[in-house]
Structures are given as C-alpha cells and as structure tokens.
C-alpha cells in the first residue's frame, strides 16, 4: 500500500454524558474498500460526521493526502474530495433526477450538460439512471443511485457510504458492489459503514471495528468469520438462536383472499392475500420497504379492519375486530415504527407497558388502572430484554432506538400470545439485543405460538423462519418452506419475478 489517503489520529468527541469517540486512530489507503463496523451507539456516526465536517472533534487530527484536514462544514469536506451517501436520502420527490443532483452540487453546470453527464457516469458505473425522471417515481434502489451519482460527479477521493444496502434487494446489492469495486480499482477510496458482516466480508479489504466509542481492531475481514467479527463488535460470545425441530400444530391464523385499500394516500394496497400460520411456526415475510408491509401488519393487528371472515384466529372470524379485541383473543402485534406507533413518545415506560398490556396482563379492574402492576410489568420487560434505562418513569422518547425496540417487542412477547405479528423486530438494534429478540421469538414458537415476522433483513429471516413468503406491490407470494431456499430465489420472490409469483397470479 502506498501513502494512505486519510489518516485519523487520536480523534475524540464527547457529548454530555457520553464519550462518542475516544482516541480513535486508523488510516484508509488509496483505492481501499474500508469497512467501519460497530453496533448502534459504537460511535460510527459521530466519526463519519467528523470526517464529513458535520461535527468538530474535541481532540485529535486528520490528514488527507499529507495535508492537515479539519473541515468546518460539509461543503469544505466536499471541496477536499470527501463525499457521502447518507442512509436516509435527501432528495426532493417533486423534482427530477438532474435537478436533485444539481441541488447537491457546489457549482452545478447547466442542467442540459448535467443531464448528459449523469447519463454517462451512471452508465459507466452500471447504475443506469434517466436524468429526466421524477424522483418521486423512483424505487429506493434508484434513489440511492441518484445519491451515488451525485457524489461521483464530484470526482471524490473518498466516498462514505452509510448502511447503503438496507433498502436494496440482493440483486441490487450485487450491482452496487460491482460499482464500488470498480470505483476502488480506479483509485477512489470507500469508507463503508455497515453491521451486515457477510457483506463486509464479501466487499471490503480492511475493517475497523468500533465498540463503545473506541477502536477495537483493524483487520482483514476476509480472514475472519462473520461470527468472529460479530464477537469483536459486541465484545462477547454470541449464541445464535437455538432451535429444536418441532412439530407444526394446527392453523392458528388464516387469511383468505383478502384485498384491502391502504389507509394512506401513498400506501400500498393489499391484493389477494392468502396465508396460513400454524402453531409453532415462524413465518418470515420478506420484501423491499414499501411493498405493503405496513398495511399487512395493520390489517393483522386490527388497526385496519377487514371483512369479518377474511381473517380467522384459531377458527374464529376476527376480520371486523379492532386491536383491543384481537389482543384479548390472543393476537398481539409490534409495528415497525416504535416511536409514535408502538409506543407513545411522551409517556413513561410504565404507561407504555400499559398501552398494549392492559387486557392480557390484567392491569385494570373495572376500568381502573393497576399502576403498580403496570410498573411491575414494565420492570419485567426491562429485566428480561436488557433494556438500558435508568428506570420505568423515563419517557419512551428518551430511550435510544435499539433500547425502545427491545422494550416494545419484549412487551408483546411477554404477553404470552397465541399469535404474534412483528414488523422489523431487530431494526436498528445491536447484535446482542437482536440475538435476544430472535431467541425470544423462537422460544415463543417452541411454546406453540404462531410467529409472523415481517423483515427486510434476509439473514434474520433465514436464521429463524420455518417458512417463507415475500411481499411485492401488495401481493404475497405463495408460502414455501425456508429449508434450502437460496438468497437468489428470495431475491426473485422479492422482485416479483419469481416463478412462485407467476404461479400465484395464475391461481388468483
């Protein structure tokens, strides 16, 4: 390796009550694909913000191509050749691709020249984009291309990518990786942030692992197993969920040929959904975000009402019932959005425990609340799912995303349901907590509950699911056994191009 592109030396940053970065040093070589690994709260975001000029470090320095580098703002960082693709896109739906790209550039050329350049650059890197299309009409993968192309047009020396694959299908991931490898070959360095270990092992030359704001190791990820990397990241030995072969019980939840309009103007309507969930079964439902996952959860939880007989729970029609009644009958749910939907942000954990636990945990008597019981319930959840909080009186919004996720999933699991529906159960949760949550779901199924997991994390689904289906534009593919399913097959199911989907259409 020649002289490094970027050297980071002893960078520290403290926020009140937390040392986000402590004395971090590492270097990124020219043309290197460098991974930055760490759990939520390990300090990845802070470090990246320092490099991109969004945050000023308390101490430490950076050297970019042998020159001191201390950007005071993102535009200064961009001028020095650092570009970043954020996890959440900053695009305007109503504008077209070229206009969006122009908005993010320091000195945009005239739009017509820009459109031409977008076309050239995007094709050169295998990310075809039509500069005249409106961003509102693009898929998540295409939107990400806009962001990437916007960075590439500025000819960056260092491209930072923050969790870029969370919105992509496996096929799209493959395309992205090709692009990144090509860029690296041409000499662009890439700092790739992720917690998906297999991806990093497939893509990166070097990985720096952070934990609790400190650098733990820099290593070659291809020489480590995913398990070893995870343990470095978490600092403890991980146990993948244990599974016994178990007998499938009767059908506990059944949906018959259900079509339902979304309650949201930009939502996805459900079209001809059929599914059967058995006692003791974990059914995984994959799909790229926005293909009807939210609607499916709302329909099953009772927030969206369906025709009475379209949904049955243990043989009883429940389509017309609301969430409260369904809960009493044994069906619980945990929606994806934890703050504002699964939990009330400005209420305490005790109150949030009561929110859905009132009936199944018998926390009311004649409508009067047993606050002590609710508090005890909250404490049980906190203890069993290792929710890090000073107490039960803390407001939900004061908890970190991962901790709140543990709390809301834990709350539903603790209710001993017959059927549990979860959407993105481990989204944004650290590896140790994710393992706890998955183990708890597996244990629940082992006790005879039917578990339906909607997730965009394929590894998660493959790890715990017995059977598998995918959502695509509001349609559900036929359910099939998860055994022997390859990532390619899943990708096709998710993309709606799989044979199963065709078969489904033929039968519908």
């Amino acid at each position, binding site marked *: 390796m020649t002289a490094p592109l970027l050297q980071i030396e002893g960078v520290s940053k403290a926020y009140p009550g937390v040392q986000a970065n402590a004395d971090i040093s590492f270097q990124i070589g020219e043309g290197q694909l460098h991974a930055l690994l760490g759990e939520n709260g390990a300090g990845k975001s802070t470090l990246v913000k320092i490099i991109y000029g969004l945050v000023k470090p308390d101490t430490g320095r950076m050297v970019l191509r042998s020159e001191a580098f201390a950007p005071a703002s993102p535009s200064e960082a961009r001028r020095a050749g650092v570009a970043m693709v954020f996890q959440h896109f900053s695009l305007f739906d109503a504008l077209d691709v070229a206009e969006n790209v122009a908005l993010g550039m320091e000195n945009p050329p005239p739009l017509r020249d820009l459109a031409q350049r977008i076309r050239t650059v995007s094709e050169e890197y295998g990310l075809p984009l039509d500069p005249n299309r409106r961003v509102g009409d693009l898929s998540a993968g295409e939107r990400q291309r806009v962001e990437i192309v916007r960075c590439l047009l500025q000819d960056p020396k260092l491209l930072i990518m923050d969790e870029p694959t969370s919105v992509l299908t496996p096929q799209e991931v493959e395309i992205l990786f090709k692009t990144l490898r090509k860029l690296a070959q041409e000499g662009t360095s890439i700092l790739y942030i992720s917690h998906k270990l297999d991806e990093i092992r497939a893509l990166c030359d070097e990985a720096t692992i952070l934990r609790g704001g400190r650098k733990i190791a820099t290593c070659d990820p291809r020489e480590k197993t995913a398990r070893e990397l995870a343990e470095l990241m978490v600092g403890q030995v991980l146990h993948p969920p244990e599974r016994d072969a178990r007998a499938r019980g009767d059908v506990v939840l059944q949906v018959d040929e259900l079509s339902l309009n979304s309650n949201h103007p930009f939502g996805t309507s459900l079209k001809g959904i059929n599914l059967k969930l058995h006692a003791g079964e974990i059914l995984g439902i994959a799909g790229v975000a926005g293909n009807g996952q939210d609607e499916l959860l709302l329909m099953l939880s009772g927030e969206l009402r369906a025709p009475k007989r379209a949904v049955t729970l243990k043989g009883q029609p429940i389509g017309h019932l609301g969430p409260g009644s369904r809960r009493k009958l044994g069906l619980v749910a945990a929606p994806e959005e934890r703050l504002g939907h699964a939990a009330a942000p400005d209420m305490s954990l005790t109150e949030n425990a009561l929110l859905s636990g*009132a009936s199944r945990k018998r926390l*009311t008597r004649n409508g009067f609340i047993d606050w002590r019981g609710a508090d005890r319930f909250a404490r049980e959840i906190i203890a069993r799912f290792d929710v890090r909080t000073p107490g039960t009186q803390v407001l939900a919004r004061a908890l970190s995303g991962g901790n709140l996720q543990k709390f809301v999933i834990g709350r539903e699991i603790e209710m001993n349901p017959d059927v549990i529906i979860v959407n993105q159960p481990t989204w944004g949760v650290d590896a140790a907590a994710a393992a706890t949550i998955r183990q708890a779901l597996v244990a629940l199924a082992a006790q005879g509950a039917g578990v339906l997991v909607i997730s965009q994390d394929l590894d998660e689904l493959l790890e715990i699911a017995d059977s598998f289906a995918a959502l695509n534009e509001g349609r559900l593919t036929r359910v099939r056994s998860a055994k022997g399913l390859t990532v390619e097959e899943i990708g096709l199911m998710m993309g709606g191009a799989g044979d199963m989907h065709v078969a489904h259409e033929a039968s519908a």
Partner: protein
Amino acid sequence: MIRLERRKEPSTFWRVANPFLAVILTMLAGGMMFVALGKDPVTAIRLIFFDPIFSAQFGSYSRPQLLIKSAPLILIAVGLAIGFKANIWNIGAEGQYIMGALFGAGVALAFFPLQGWYIFPLMILAGAFGGFLWAMIPAILKTRFNTNEILVSLLLVYVAERILAAMALGLMRNPDQPGFPGSRDLRRYESAHNAELIAGTGLHWGVVAALVAVIFAYVMMTRHMLGFHVRLAGQAPRAARFAGVAPARLVVICLGIAGALAGLAGMFEVSGPGGQVRIEFAVGYGFTAIIVAFLGRLHPIGIVLAGLLLGLTYIGGELAQMMLGLPSASIQVFQGMLLFFLLALDFQTNYRIRLREEVRR
C-alpha cells in the same frame, strides 16, 4: 446566532413556572395598556387583583362573588380540558352553557308555580342534557362527516345565542310582565332557586358540582383507562389506535362530558346568580374557560387555581370599570393577554434557546 434546541424531556420546572410568569407578564403588559389609557397602572392592577379580596371597602361584597364567578369557569374548564388532552377542540362551551341554562330554566318554568323537592334535581339533569345535546352536534358531524369540531362548535355558539334571545323574548318571557324581555326570576321560585347554601359565602350547588367534577376528572385522568386513552389519543394518535382506542368513540365521550358540564354550569347560573333567562345572560364564561383550562395546565387542580384567578379578574374588572372608568373590553384584553403569554412561554417547556457555539446534530 440564536438556535432552538428540542429538550430531551419537557421541562417540569417551566411547566409549573410558566403560568405564574404569564400572570406577571400580563400584569406588566396590562399596566402599560392602562398607562396608554391614561390610568394609573398600580391602582388598576391593585383594583383588579387585590382589592376584590383584601379591600375593607369592597371585600364584603366581592369575596362571595369569587366563588360565584369561578364555579362556572372551573366546571366548564374541567370538561374542556379532558377534550383538549385528547386533541378534541371544543371551542363552543359558551353555546353548551346557554343550552344547559335554557333546558334547566325550561323545566323550572314548565313546573311553575308547583313546589316540590324533585324540581331542582330534574333541572340539573335537564341542564346537563341540554349541554350534552348541543355538544353532540359537532361530535356526530365530526365522526360521520369528518367536519372540524372547532368550527362547528364555535359557530353553534351564535346559534345558541339566537335561540337564547328568541326564548327571552318569546316562549320563556314572563307572562306577568309582558313589557319586559326575560323570563320569570327563578330566584323567586323556591323549588327552582339555586340558593346560597351558606349565606354570604357565594357557595351554591354549582360550586359543589364544580368540586365534584374536579375530583371526578382527577380520578378519571390518573386512575382510569378512559383517562389514559384520552391522554394517549392526544399525545400519540397512532399509538392510541394501536392500543385499540376507537377515535370516534373518544370524540363523542370528550365532547359529551364537556357539553354536559358546560350545560350544568349554565343551569346553576340561570337558577342562581343569573336568575332569569335574559338576552344578555351569557357573559363569556364558555370562552374564558378555555383560558382557565390552559392556564391550569389542563390539570384539575391547576384548573381550580386558574378558575379562581380568572374569576378574580371578572370581579376586579368590574371594580376597575366602576372606580377608574376603564372600558369593559379592557378586561377581556387582559384575559386574552394571559393566554397569549402562557402559550408563548410554553415554548421553553419543550425547547431550549441557546446561543450558537458549536455545530451539533
């Protein structure tokens, strides 16, 4: 550069301190207004806030007035606060108050001149029912047709005022005095009179009802699932739906409670301090109660304190009108300022103002 930063948790200190601060700021700004009107601000403020209670000269008259003016404010505000907590904005309590008074007085006038212990309880029921009924109009329009309850309830106030005028001049007019608008004086009709329970204190059944309502609301909001659902629906509507709260049911309950309590307030007023159905019967308690509810932090105990304070401004305002010749509108300006300052100050409950030093996310 000045920046606003959202607090991690709302500041408890400011939540409690702001109402007091708002009162002080209102006194200052009100004082300036009095200066502009050419009056001595210190005397005016003293007349409004202190003399009604402490002055030897006026105290004996105005002290009982405090309960009389505060009771309807508290009764109405307690009901409004429950709705406000759920983000259901009943702005038309004044109309519900009028309808309660008309229903209550209607029962009394129908029985006149019969005497009987059952008349007054019937009037109470009728009063609550009248307010409830009037509140059901915005409630049902909202749940059926998704209309805006703010507009509908507010506009119904003016409808209620027309009905009041029509009643005072027509159906309910005192047949013994056909030359005058207004009904019989219920204070002279023993079975219907909401008399003072202890002479010279201003304590009448409306005050008792207000106290009961405060306790009822407190228990409901802190110990009952219904109160929990009300708060949940107000703070996080989607979480409320997830919990299983039916929004339409909540709209009906909240507007119904507020309407019934406002109706009660109207009925106790018309059968006691007000005395008769008159065109100018409604003096804005229903609107002032909105200020009371907010100043009291939508909390039953806070509402008692705020109700007493606003009741005081009514009495003090009259006193200042009499002694200094202040225009009657000035006291409404005063009350409005109170709400204005409170809402402005409340900003810092959730946000912190800082002078910019470093870039943070």
